[in-house]
């Protein structure tokens, strides 16, 4: 449905050009927009005109016109004058409003179409028929999901639309309250770096223009329309996995989730089994700030004790003591590659479990 604001602006602009006052009613005689304070109650007259066969008529000093959209009366336009010139202006205004309404309807229908594709709500045969109708061709596309932190308002969508929406090749839509979806034509973006740069551009623009925190996830390239839904699911998963394992990144590609994607898909029961196997019945209280920083630094420095000690500003012996204390607590010597790997995976599984259960399973009091 064409917005009232849009209609009002259109009438105002036509009045500026023609110096003629106009009002617009819907087919039930209710006032939609006006360029002057319409005091006269013309509801009955409008309804009667709408039900008549005439496309235009002169009544009460005004020209009445029907605005037909898809052969149905959508609006009734009144031009407040009985001159020949007013009639011409009225006809032009009818064209303008009808084209606007049709464009909006088509846009709405296209938007609806894309939403249904994303959600997988469409039969393949319907998909291709409608795609033909909307002139949407099969080409390489990637779905980007922009997750907005906090309340998403209409203005935020407009920023993304401003960047891509005017293009006939890209589609900007939303299917829930939190996310904005961009279905991007990527035939000209051959490299992974180019896809990443679109994601970064989305994030940076949202930060600087809309001034909201966002996270952008994107899926793999797809060609067939029915696979767009898959790219969308991948983009959503990228965001979810990113929140758990790559919280410092604001753009996440599904194809680069690595071990995070594997762990994310492990059922909770298997996660619990694995954690019990590694740590025993109770998760040991080893995740103190000191230990977490020590382990993090140790892994960052590829299990190099000297470099880790240097960066932590502790003596080498102090670091060795900490690692031996850890080994006593959990039975894993993270100076050895196999144990370090097991521990790293266990930490990631715990992060996953914490996220899914909404509690931090790693918090505990200081170790003695």
């Amino acid at each position, binding site marked *: 449905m064409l917005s009232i604001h849009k209609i009002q602006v259109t009438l105002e602009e036509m009045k500026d050009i023609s110096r003629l006052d106009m009002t617009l009613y819907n087919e039930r005689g209710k006032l939609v927009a006006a360029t002057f304070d319409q005091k006269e109650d013309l509801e009955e007259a409008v309804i009667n005109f709408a039900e008549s066969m005439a496309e235009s008529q002169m009544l009460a000093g005004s020209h009445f016109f029907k605005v037909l959209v898809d052969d149905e009366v959508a609006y009734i336009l009144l031009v407040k004058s009985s001159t020949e010139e007013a009639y011409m202006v009225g006809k032009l205004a009818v064209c303008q409003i009808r084209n606007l309404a049709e464009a909006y309807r088509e846009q709405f229908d296209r938007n609806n179409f894309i939403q249904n594709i994303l959600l997988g709500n469409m039969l393949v045969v319907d998909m291709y028929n409608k795609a033909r109708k909307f002139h949407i061709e099969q080409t390489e596309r990637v779905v980007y999901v922009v997750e907005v932190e906090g309340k998403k308002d209409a203005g935020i969508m407009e920023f993304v639309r*401003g960047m891509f929406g005017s293009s006939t090749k890209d589609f900007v839509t939303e299917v829930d309250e939190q996310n904005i979806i961009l279905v991007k034509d990527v035939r000209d973006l051959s490299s992974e770096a180019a896809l990443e740069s679109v994601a970064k*551009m989305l994030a940076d*623009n949202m*930060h600087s223009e809309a001034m909201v925190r966002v996270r952008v996830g994107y899926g793999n390239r797809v060609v067939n329309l029915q696979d767009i839904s898959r790219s969308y699911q991948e983009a959503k998963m990228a965001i979810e996995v990113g929140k758990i394992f790559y919280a*410092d990144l604001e753009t996440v590609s599904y194809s680069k989730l690595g071990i995070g994607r594997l762990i994310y898909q492990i059922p909770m029961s298997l996660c619990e089994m694995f954690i019990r196997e590694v740590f025993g019945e109770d998760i040991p209280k080893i995740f103190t700030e000191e230990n977490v920083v020590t382990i993090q630094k140790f892994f960052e420095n590829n299990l190099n004790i000297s470099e880790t000690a240097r960066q932590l500003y502790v003596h080498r012996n102090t670091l060795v003591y900490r690692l031996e204390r850890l080994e006593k607590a959990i039975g894993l010597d993270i100076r050895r590659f196999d144990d370090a790997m097991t521990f790293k995976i266990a*930490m990631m599984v715990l*992060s996953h479990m914490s996220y899914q259960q909404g509690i931090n399973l790693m918090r505990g009091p200081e170790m003695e």
Partner: protein
Amino acid sequence: MASLSLKNICKKYPNGFEAVKDFNLEVEDKEFIIFVGPSGCGKSTTLRMIAGLEEISSGELKIDGKLVNDVEPKDRDIAMVFQNYALYPHMTVFDNMAFGLKLRKVPKPEIKQKVEEAAKILDLEKLLDRKPKALSGGQRQRVAMGRAIVRNPKVFLMDEPLSNLDAKLRVQMRSEISGLHQRLGATIIYVTHDQTEAMTLGTRIVVLKDGVIMQVDSPIKLYNEPNNLFVAGFIGSPQMNFVDAVCKVEGEKATLTFDKFTVTLPPAKAKKLADGGYNGKTVVLGIRPDDMGDSQIEIETHKDSIIESDVTGYELLGSEVLLYFNVAGVSMTAKVDSRTTARLGDHVKLAMDTQKIHVFDKETEQTITN
């Protein structure tokens, strides 16, 4: 415009990674502060915490004396310019700058006034009707800045805005940003990984490494008086030369020996080494390529700090030459006058300006002699 106060600011992610540790900084009104450091040092994270795009794990952030930790980005009276900006391709320059204001329902006359003011500052007045594809790279960058200027913010935050530009355009835009700072009288916080950019733009530079502030100082002080090995190596191009040397203190005299060379330090530096108990210890000698020379005058002036080696690389820069050589197993560089007769393969003598020698504690990496 405004002042900024960052007290004990920390950023820790749920997985335990500490991106920023105990960051303390006071920014005065109208200052141009640069955050510089290698990739992953926490500079962008800190900027985003100031912007409100990243939650502050602990610490206090105040803008103009007001605590803003929990204030939404759009309510902090800031404007941002990022590396990967995109102009709205189907809108004119005017509409690009006006779009954000329009969506915030700013009245039309006010939008017009703000856009025209910004266009005047950025020299975009004649381009207001053009679309982005008809603009040069530099003009587009200015439009991106225009989008920030029209918000009339208290603080501008810029995150590597020039990184995507080619070298020539970067140099041009640097001077434009510097000019903009003067014209706007704005408080600007600017993030870059490029130390040359940092040195040319900032009134004060914050050097970061692994989430920790290494030093906060003016460009000249950072260059001449680095606090530690990291700052000394990061600031200055070509990089400072470092070589391990054994310190010997005899009375008021201190020497540094490496390979077969001995360098005698001036009294002030000798005293610092003596007072610090560095006699017999291995320290790190640092000397900038610019502070070495092979001319006869330099060799005669600095008789106590001569080293010799074979030239393994020769690069003519124009008015200067870079000579590459090895000493004590370490690859070093000297920047000498282009009139040098030294060529590739020649055996050369180089003198170090002992007043410009820096000595660092090998364990702590802190400067001893500044």
